[in-house]
């Protein structure tokens, strides 16, 4: 497995790419918070929010097509809220197509949840497509996420590709040994299959354990003393401040009007 199968970063030198990671993380969080605070049924305001990630991908030169394609990732979870139109009390309408009776308030709330979720995920996608993962970690560290946690995630990121490769080899080895003739049962029952997969997981666990020992030894040999050092954060540029202030002001405006004109 290679980095480009999983890492969504698209290199570039646009304004969005050049923004300080701290600013990008803050903007993303503020955006998602705004979306969450907007009351249900504020369709115009959802549209105003959607403009931000769309503008972002256009400026970054990524193209909205990619964003749209990725953004449906969280959609299956909508199932969790699908009962709202049928359970929320209030005035009801009967749908002309299926003859279902749904509550208006419930339907509005359901569609709002799905839309908000869809809009929020676009901003998160914009963040990772325009920021390299080491930069992102550095931004989180500068924003006072605990140092150990950031280092652990950093080391983890370094090794997911190595261990995912090992997992792929385990799966390939199993597939190579699992002959199947159509119409005949092959292998054991579910418990047997589960145990085989468990054995693979256990084997991967031991290899990871031993690998971590070797990595630790290698780190000590290179002078590791228990601390991973980071660069001191550089000063923010004028562009950084402009973007941060503009976006926060815009979000505040959208939120204020959204709350003010809430039905």
């Amino acid at each position: 497995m290679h980095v480009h199968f999983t890492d969504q970063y698209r290199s570039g030198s646009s304004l969005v790419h050049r923004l300080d990671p701290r600013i990008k993380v803050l903007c993303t969080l503020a955006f998602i918070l705004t979306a969450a605070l907007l009351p249900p049924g504020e369709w115009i305001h959802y549209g105003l929010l959607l403009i931000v990630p769309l503008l972002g991908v256009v400026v970054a030169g990524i193209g909205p097509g990619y964003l749209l394609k990725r953004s449906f990732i969280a959609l299956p979870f909508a199932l969790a809220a699908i009962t709202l139109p049928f359970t929320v009390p209030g005035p009801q309408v009967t749908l002309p197509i299926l003859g279902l009776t749904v509550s208006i308030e419930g339907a509005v709330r359901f569609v709002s949840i799905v839309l908000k979720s869809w809009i929020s995920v676009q901003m998160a996608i914009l963040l990772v497509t325009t920021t390299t993962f080491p930069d992102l970690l550095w931004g989180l560290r500068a924003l006072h996420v605990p140092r150990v946690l950031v280092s652990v995630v950093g080391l983890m990121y370094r090794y997911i590709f190595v261990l995912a490769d090992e997992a792929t080899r385990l799966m390939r080895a199993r597939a190579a040994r699992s002959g199947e003739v159509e119409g005949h049962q092959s292998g054991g029952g579910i418990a047997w299959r589960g145990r085989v997969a468990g054995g693979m997981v256990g084997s991967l666990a031991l290899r990871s354990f031993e690998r971590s020992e070797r990595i630790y030894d290698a780190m000590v040999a290179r002078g590791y003393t228990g601390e991973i050092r980071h660069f001191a954060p550089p000063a923010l540029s004028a562009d950084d401040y402009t973007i941060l202030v503009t976006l926060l002001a815009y979000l505040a405006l959208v939120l204020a009007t959204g709350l003010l004109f809430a039905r």
Partner: protein
Amino acid sequence: MLFLPVQSPPQLHIPDGFLSVPVAAAGWIVAAICIGYALLKTRGQLGEKQIPLMGVLAAFIFAAQALNFPVAGGTSGHLLGATLAAIVVGPWAAMLIMTSVIGLQAILFQDGGLLSLGWNIVNMGILGAFTGYGVYQFARRVTGDGRTSLIVAGALGGWLSVMLGAAATAAQLALSGAAALSIALPAMLGVHALIGVGEALITAGALLFINATRPDLLRAGRAATGSRSAIWVLLALVIALGLALVSPLASPDPDGLNRVAADLGFDSEAQAAPYEILPGYSMPLIENPNLTKIAAVGIGTLVVFGIAFVIGRIGARKKIAA
């Protein structure tokens, strides 16, 4: 065959948009406190090995979540991994490992939201690690040291950790007004009763393998920090969750709640979601209704957790003294 770790086990990663801000904030508070404590605990236990060991094991859990086995009709059994990690390295280290896994999935793959990350960490990482570990330790104590005991304890721990995470997720969705608890809870538990079987089988299989190859690792896990407090932390979490689940059921009549709110002078809260932990609760010092809600839900969760934890610790002391 293309390897896609992006397809991790679905449905427990809550995306953004589903949780209300007060509920999401409460999750972040609980997660932050637990993570802070776990960082201290593992620092003492692992020392300077903390970062390499937990980093590589987090990568391992991430990769292991993609190892699956075919069940039937195109579905497959998966691993979440909190139980296995907790049994091998102890609950506090496992909690941090799961936090890293869930955090990376949210940031890098949008597998779960950023506002909802707090609860996702609690549901799958903290609850998962402590349930799995507590149940495993308890079952081992009851069933002895044999191979069967290992299978039963690992499978039970894995299954229950998934079920508890599912129940917690349903409760948070209900509290946010994103689903009706009467439907979400049975639906989540029903689906995850099956998903949990995959977790149980893989956990037990992995433990058998580790026991046959490196039995010392399992003994080290039993001696890890937090093994004594694990059961009490678990108890505290379960009680807190139980109360959160019961609270909306206890007063299913929203009109009644509104009347109580009006009687007590909290009219501003009248348009609140039908399910809330402290319905109509507000603090006189805070004027902003949203801040009030955040404070109310956060404090409520913490108080319940705190009380349960203290009761648990007192119980533990008595037992040790006796």
